[in-house]
């Protein structure tokens, strides 16, 4: 900063620390609640230090589930993991291929194809939810992983990101590869793919979080409880009659649901930011 004023520095730290506390508090409470028994929480006098029921709550939640849902959360986490990985990997695969075609080939209708893909940027799945549901149902994909994953990868963010990245790669690389006798397949595998690794990883982080956190779509197309994802599962735990809500199980589930995506963001922070900033533009 221009002035070196200790007071301004102090205020900056204070504001940020308050910000961090406000941001962390809801999660801290959930973690605390996951260590108490139902009675302590229902009384409304839950202490702000950990209780002694953590092991009991986590084993029960993971392997047996709550009284209402009766579905072990472990199964839901596996479903969420398959969905998130499917969306992330599926989107990377289809979009790197289509971006390669659009950037490195000249073929009829190239511009049209690009625009057809590009327009999908504008409409989230939420606005065409019933017709999409009907089509997935007609294709017999309800309660399947394919049905969970496919409609959510039908958008252009990935294609755009790879296209932007490919545009920054110097033409000389392709010319050199061609002189060395490399065909389209060799150039892709030996030159383009290794160069794209950071972009692929960044897109993976963003799409993994997007997939893990999906709500409306899995809510509509999964009817079997064995196909449920954890983000949907938790809602079923808290909507039944109040007195029956097992808050300790619900909060344990909330904590479990946050762990994978939050870890991904914290450990892959640099890539996450790169992916976010570039896909949004």
């Amino acid at each position: 900063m221009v002035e070196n004023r200790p007071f301004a520095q102090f205020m900056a730290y204070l504001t940020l620390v308050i910000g961090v506390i406000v941001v962390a508090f809801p999660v801290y409470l959930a973690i605390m609640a996951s260590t108490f028994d139902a009675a302590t929480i229902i009384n409304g006098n839950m202490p702000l230090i950990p209780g002694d029921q953590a092991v009991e709550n986590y084993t029960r939640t993971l392997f047996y589930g709550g009284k209402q849902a009766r579905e072990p959360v472990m199964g839901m986490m596996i479903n969420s993991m398959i969905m998130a990985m499917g969306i992330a990997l599926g989107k990377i695969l289809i979009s790197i291929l289509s971006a390669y075609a659009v950037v490195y080939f000249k073929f009829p209708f190239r511009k049209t194809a690009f625009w057809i893909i590009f327009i999908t940027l504008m409409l989230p799945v939420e606005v065409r939810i019933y017709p999409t549901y009907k089509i997935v149902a007609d294709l017999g994909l309800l309660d399947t992983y394919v049905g969970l994953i496919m409609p959510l990868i039908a958008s252009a963010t990935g294609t755009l990101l790879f296209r932007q990245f490919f545009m920054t790669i110097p033409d000389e690389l392709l010319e050199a590869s061609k002189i060395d006798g490399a065909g389209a397949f060799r150039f892709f595998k030996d030159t383009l793919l290794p160069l794209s690794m950071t972009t692929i990883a960044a897109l993976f982080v963003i799409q993994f979080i997007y997939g893990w956190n999906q709500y409306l779509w899995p809510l509509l197309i999964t009817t079997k409880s064995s196909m449920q994802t954890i983000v949907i599962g938790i809602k079923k735990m808290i909507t039944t009659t109040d007195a029956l809500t097992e808050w300790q199980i619900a909060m344990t589930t909330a904590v479990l649901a946050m762990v994978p995506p939050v870890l991904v963001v914290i450990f892959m922070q640099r890539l996450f930011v790169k992916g976010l900033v570039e896909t949004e533009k």
Partner: protein
Amino acid sequence: MEKRAHFSGWTLPLLLILPQMAITVIFFYWPASQAIWQSFLREDAFGLSSEFVGFENYLGLFEQPEYYRAMVTTVIFSSLVAFFSMSCALLLATQADKNIRAGHAFKTLLIWPYAVAPAIAGVLWIFMFHPTLGTLARPIRAIGIDWNPMLNGTHAMILLVLSATWKHVSYNFLFFLAGLQAIPRSVIEAGAIDGAGPMRRFWTIVFPLLSPTTFFLLVVTVVYVFFETFGIIDAVTGGGPAGQTTTLVYKVYADGRLGGDLGGSAAQSVILMIIVIALTAIQFRYVERKVQY
């Protein structure tokens, strides 16, 4: 922009582009066109027959007081979340920008709510503000406010705004911080030499330079409130009490699923599509013009 060097032939590129095209056509264009087509049809109660009714579904919507109410709710909800999430984020970003080294540490501590699912964020906030057992609801009740988001529409809306803001601050913070760090220090130093104090420098130099970021975030935040908060609303209030927190997107879901009114629901979808396309178009035109890549 065009590549000078490229491959020739057209079977291979068509094969490469085929998977994306197939998925886009089947899961995007087909349902989107169905939505438009359906918005002009009326189905009988059993879904056995349908007739073409033109714009009747749209006209019907505008005769419903509930539709106007959902519109008003959406506007209130979006403006509050946009205002709070952007101003908090800007405050935190300017403070984090003061000391780069601490800024990095605080960035890690502040960005992770982005990774929390909206529905989970909602669940965390209900737990804190649950009328009987919420840790933060008890002090509110103790000072004599009859806090109950399950029965009181205003309380329910406050809870939704808080949880949606909590979830979105990290995103806006990230972009504001990046925007601030892109402003050359020399510009700010020049302002200081000319005798401008910190506040004056912020409002006359920094804030105008941030305006493209601010505008971009405003659009993104509004789109976020429209669509991604569906999970928060469904988990926290279910659109209630008495429909007081039903937004436009929630109403599409509620009418189609509970009401079985597919034509009306489709008409609402089409109106939403038009709104989003308009928002995106404005964003692209503005960002393209203002931001130098």
